[in-house]
């Protein structure tokens, strides 16, 4: 591209040297816009009066130089070069009134705006970092007193607890009131109790198999009773309108999720 105009007449020797110097540390630039901003400084004018045409030529010269020196340029530098070559041609040609495309002047104005904005953001970033900073210039309290959470535990027991406790003691050797040996049976009440606590966290569809307590999943007998109880409890919660339940297919996993409050 633009092979015949490697050294445009507007560009003096000093500028060329400056452009070549830039090539040495191309890695120091954060992309083509950063490089363009750097190049624009050689024009020594307010960015609002900058000649985008001259800048485009400087950039293209930079890219050509880099090629001559066999410096590998990242793709976005080449994309920018292509775009600036296009912009340059638009700026040099008289505008075509039948053309729908934006004019060269519009495109140049936008590029100038981008450069000015980037420079402005750099300037305010520097002002921001120069402010008094907490922990460097200004300090917070060194000895903080956390609010101590005093946990006052109030123990309660009801008369019934007391009487049952006594009955338990007095009859311990003889029999156990209200106790049946069913270690390997999970009741629906147990499952329901467990689910009521956990259901609040089930915002998304969850396999009910994952609801089984850990100690009920090993032994097949325990797993079976836990599954049945959990399923029955799920149906109960559906009836109460607290969860939704679904099964994709026969014998497919059964999923439940919390019903959103608005749906109730």
């Amino acid at each position, binding site marked *: 591209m633009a092979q015949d105009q490697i050294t445009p007449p507007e560009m003096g020797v000093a500028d060329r040297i400056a452009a070549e110097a830039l090539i040495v540390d191309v890695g120091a630039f954060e992309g083509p816009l950063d490089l363009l901003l750097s190049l624009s400084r050689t024009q020594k004018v307010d960015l609002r009066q900058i000649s985008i045409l001259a800048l485009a030529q400087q950039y293209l010269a930079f890219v050509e130089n880099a090629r001559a020196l066999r410096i590998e340029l990242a793709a976005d530098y080449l994309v920018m070069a292509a775009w600036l070559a296009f912009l340059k041609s638009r700026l040099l040609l008289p505008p075509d009134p039948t053309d729908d495309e934006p004019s060269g002047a519009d495109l140049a104005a936008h590029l100038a705006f981008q450069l000015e904005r980037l420079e402005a953001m750099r300037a305010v970033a520097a002002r921001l970092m120069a402010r008094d900073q907490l922990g460097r210039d200004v*300090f*917070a*309290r*060194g*000895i903080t*007193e*956390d*609010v*101590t*959470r*005093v*946990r*006052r*535990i*109030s*123990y*309660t*027991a*009801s*008369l*019934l*607890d*007391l*009487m*049952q*406790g*006594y*009955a*338990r*003691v*007095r*009859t*311990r*050797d*003889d*029999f*156990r*009131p*209200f106790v049946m040996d069913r270690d390997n049976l999970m009741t629906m009440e147990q499952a329901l109790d467990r689910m009521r606590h956990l259901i609040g966290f089930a915002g998304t569809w969850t396999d009910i198999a994952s609801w089984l307590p850990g100690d009920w999943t090993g032994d097949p007998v325990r797993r079976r009773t836990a599954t049945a109880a959990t399923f029955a409890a799920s149906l109960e919660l559906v009836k109460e309108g607290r969860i939704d339940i679904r099964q994709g297919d026969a014998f497919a996993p059964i999923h439940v999720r919390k019903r959103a409050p608005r749906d109730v």
Partner: protein
Amino acid sequence: MSEPRDSLFEAPPLADQERMVEAILFATADPMTPTQLAGRLPHGCDPVTALAAVRRRYAGRGVHLVRVGEAWAFRTAPDLGFLMRHEVVETRKLSRAAIETLAIVAYHQPATRAEIEEIRGVGVSRGTLDQLIELGWVRLGQRRMSPGRPVTFIVTQGFLDHFGLETARDLPGLKELRAAGLLDSRTVPGTEEEPVETQDDLFERSPDGAG
């Protein structure tokens, strides 16, 4: 022997020294001695005078300058300590051991520790009785007039209030517990309720017995 520094830098006015001491003590993580302060302050400052001024300024405020050994630190005014506490009352059920011990004391008072252990069939940890005493539900009664003169435990008015009882005699006996379905009815013969015999004078004074 005045150093050249003295003539070059004059110490800041006392008002500024006071501000400096204030800022340093605010920001440091540890109390600071006057010597440590002097090391931080510009040359020629007098930390002791500045500390006294800061102390006066904060007198009666929400924060005080207090002395901690040789050092000084800002601390919350003692009367405002309550602002630094957030009380959370957590209700917990009494443990089974505590419930049973309490029940035994209530039904058998005054009861010695040995008696409680005999009835429960297991040892009673010191902590359990301590907890009940701390809760204000159990207190020490008169020593038993038996060898070793062991202490006895009785229930308190606080206990009666909490459980809504007029007296401990209002507690239902085993027969009533059974009638209420609290005990399985298949009682092994020979274990009929015997609280009355083990009972203390409180129960014995009761007109209607223990049921």
